[in-house]
């Protein structure tokens, strides 16, 4: 029961803050709404028993990445006239209706019929059942279980990620700096 109430609080928060990101004209408001959206998403991750990922979401996304976004927004310091004026056309209304319609149709008909039997099975999957598939002494979603999956079962992608981050750092410096 508490899980249901928390899920709906987090879901409404995620969708409201996400809509603010898309609809706000001022990028600073959008960035702060995105931080709120990430916090609500971390709440849903906790409901999915992904405690480590929830902490990573707050530290890496809401912390590091969003500081980078806000820093660049402040650096560019766009004026009101550079942000453009809102334009309301009939095409935006048509686009809104088609997006909401298509997403709703996919969500309720496609997912509903495809996962109907899974829904009954999946809802019955308790965390105690999930613990059978992880190491002894490492609950599902804990640091030990995730670390086992990352460092032992997928070492090559992990090393490639470190290479990717190195390339990204060098590339960002080369692109953003005028003269090296």
């Amino acid at each position, binding site marked *: 029961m508490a899980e249901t109430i928390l899920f709906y609080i987090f879901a409404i928060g995620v969708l409201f803050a996400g809509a603010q990101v898309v609809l706000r004209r001022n990028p600073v408001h959008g960035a702060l709404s995105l931080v709120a959206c990430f916090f609500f998403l971390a709440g849903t991750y906790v409901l999915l028993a*992904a405690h480590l*990922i929830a902490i990573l979401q707050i530290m890496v996304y809401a912390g590091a*990445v969003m500081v980078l976004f806000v820093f660049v927004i402040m650096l560019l310091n766009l004026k009101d006239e550079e942000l453009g004026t809102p334009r309301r056309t009939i095409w935006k209304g048509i686009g809104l209706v088609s997006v909401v319609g298509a997403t709703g149709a996919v969500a309720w008909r496609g997912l509903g019929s495809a996962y109907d039997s899974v*829904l009954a099975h*999946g*809802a019955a*999957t308790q965390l105690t059942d999930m613990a059978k598939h992880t*190491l002894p002494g490492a609950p599902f979603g804990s640091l030990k279980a995730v670390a086992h999956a990352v460092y032992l079962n997928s070492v090559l992608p992990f090393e490639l990620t470190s290479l*990717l981050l190195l390339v990204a750092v060098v590339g960002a410096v080369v692109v953003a700096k005028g003269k090296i």
Partner: protein
Amino acid sequence: MVGPLHYLVLAAALFALGAVGVVIRRNAIIVLMSIELMLNAVNLTFLTFSRFPLVVKGNDAPIAGHAAVFYVIAVAAAEAAVGLAIVIAVFRSRLTVNVDEIDSLKN
């Protein structure tokens, strides 16, 4: 009782929001933030299927979804760094971040 379908519908709605943001906004920074929204919708889907697995094979198959989310977060951080560097470079040369005015590849 909250099942996998609830989380999947939430992820679909969040992905749609991000896709709409990429299409309708003209500020390049907000386009990048909408891409972050879409990546987070994908993360939510990964975690949902990790928590409610369809098939379980091997010793620790479901937890692999958490590892996938770990990589997506790392790649998203790299993407944000490079994307914002490109925005700064474009702003320096053209004094705009409006994606409708950045069309030098067209001519």
